[in-house]
């Protein structure tokens, strides 16, 4: 599995589009769109996002990690940080 930033970013974006948005919203979703402020991610669906990340990348997330996952870019950076052991 390619674990470079662009690949992780694309995978996360694809998950968010598939699971959380209608087809017509794809063009409006940017990689820096605030997912929580826009209501795309909330307390109801956040666990699905967590499961996807943990299963796809074999990492374990703490609730405080999830708090920082506000945009697709932040999520990708957070995943890479966990994979490399470096915080970003």
């Amino acid at each position, binding site marked *: 599995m390619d674990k470079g930033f662009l690949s992780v970013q694309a995978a996360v974006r694809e998950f968010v589009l598939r699971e959380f*948005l209608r087809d017509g919203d794809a063009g*409006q979703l940017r990689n820096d769109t605030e997912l929580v402020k*826009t*209501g795309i991610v909330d*307390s109801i669906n*956040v666990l699905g996002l967590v499961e996807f990340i943990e299963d796809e990348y074999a990492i374990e997330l703490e*609730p*405080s990690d999830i*708090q920082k996952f506000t945009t697709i870019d932040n999520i990708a950076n957070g995943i890479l940080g966990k994979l490399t052991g470096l915080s970003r």
Partner: protein
Amino acid sequence: MEFDLTPEQRALQEEILRFSRAELNKDVIERDREARFRRDLWEKCAGIGLPGLIVPAEHGGSGVDCLTTAIASEAFGRGCTDGGLVFSILAHLLTCVAPIVRYGTEEQKERYLPGLCDGTIVGGNAMSEPGSGSDAFAMKTRAIPDGSRFILTGSKTFSTNAPVADLVVVFALTPDKGGDAVSAFLLDPKTPGVEIGRPIEKSGLRTSPMAELHFDEVILPADTLLGGAGGGATIFAHSMNWERVCLFAAQVGVMERLHEQAVDYVKTRKQFGKPIGHFQSVSNTIAENLIRLNAGRLLVYEAAWRLDNRKNPTIAASAAKIFVSESFQKMAADTVRIFGGYGFTTEYEVERIYRDSIASTIYSGTNEMQRQIIARLLGLKIHPGLE
């Protein structure tokens, strides 16, 4: 697809059923009338591992998965006629024990889990506030950082087990990047500044103690934070999925008991020279409720399987919660009617089950909110930020 229980699940189910029937059902009518919680019965339940089912063995529990917990809860609900005791034990397990098992540090697990399992620590949970029920995250209770500690101020209501709890998972707002985030704390109610309000008297589940909690600048050491700062929303979502599966598994068990009681009664009660089960209005009702019971069980078990197998259980858990609670309420009301005038008396113990069933469509997130959760996850709601 295998529908049979494993031998271990079957053994656990039978043990809990036998234990509950033999040990927990004396004087329930009086306990309900007096709204009396029995700590000694809690300790008996701890003797067979009920309060610590999901805790790993290294910390004193049985280490079972969600499906097995649901099977155990179903047996508990079926065997124990004190709905309040069942509710309190499961609230402890699902809203206090489960979050610590999943998100606690090793130190927190070692400090609390053994006692939560062996009956020496009764757990509770404090989320709702007078101004925030369904809108749970509109809470006002705050935990302000002060060096390495937090200062907790605010109030909670409808806190199950609060009058008798030794440990409460409290949710509060903490500052985060110019705004607020929800964090969870492990609170000892004996901490100075904590006031346990008057016990809240309820229509049903009367032996399950409930009260308000008030926090007046309560000092919380840093090691009481559960899951890190801002982790409260995730922790709450996690415990809600477990609650919507396993608490409602117990209700499936109660429905089984109601079914058995109704069938026994209508075979013996005679009117117009015939057992009343002969009459279609009675037999059809029993048949329809059996369908609801079996369907509810399957919904609960599928949600439990999803939770165990990382298959995003949220829609399944909400669906199980809606269907089981509404079926439970209907079945309880129907059972009162099947018993006729006797169903309305306390002696036959079915009116108490009806009173217990009323709150089932309200707690664990109202059924109205559950329907919105499903709609939300089906993508039926518009995201204002993208308009």
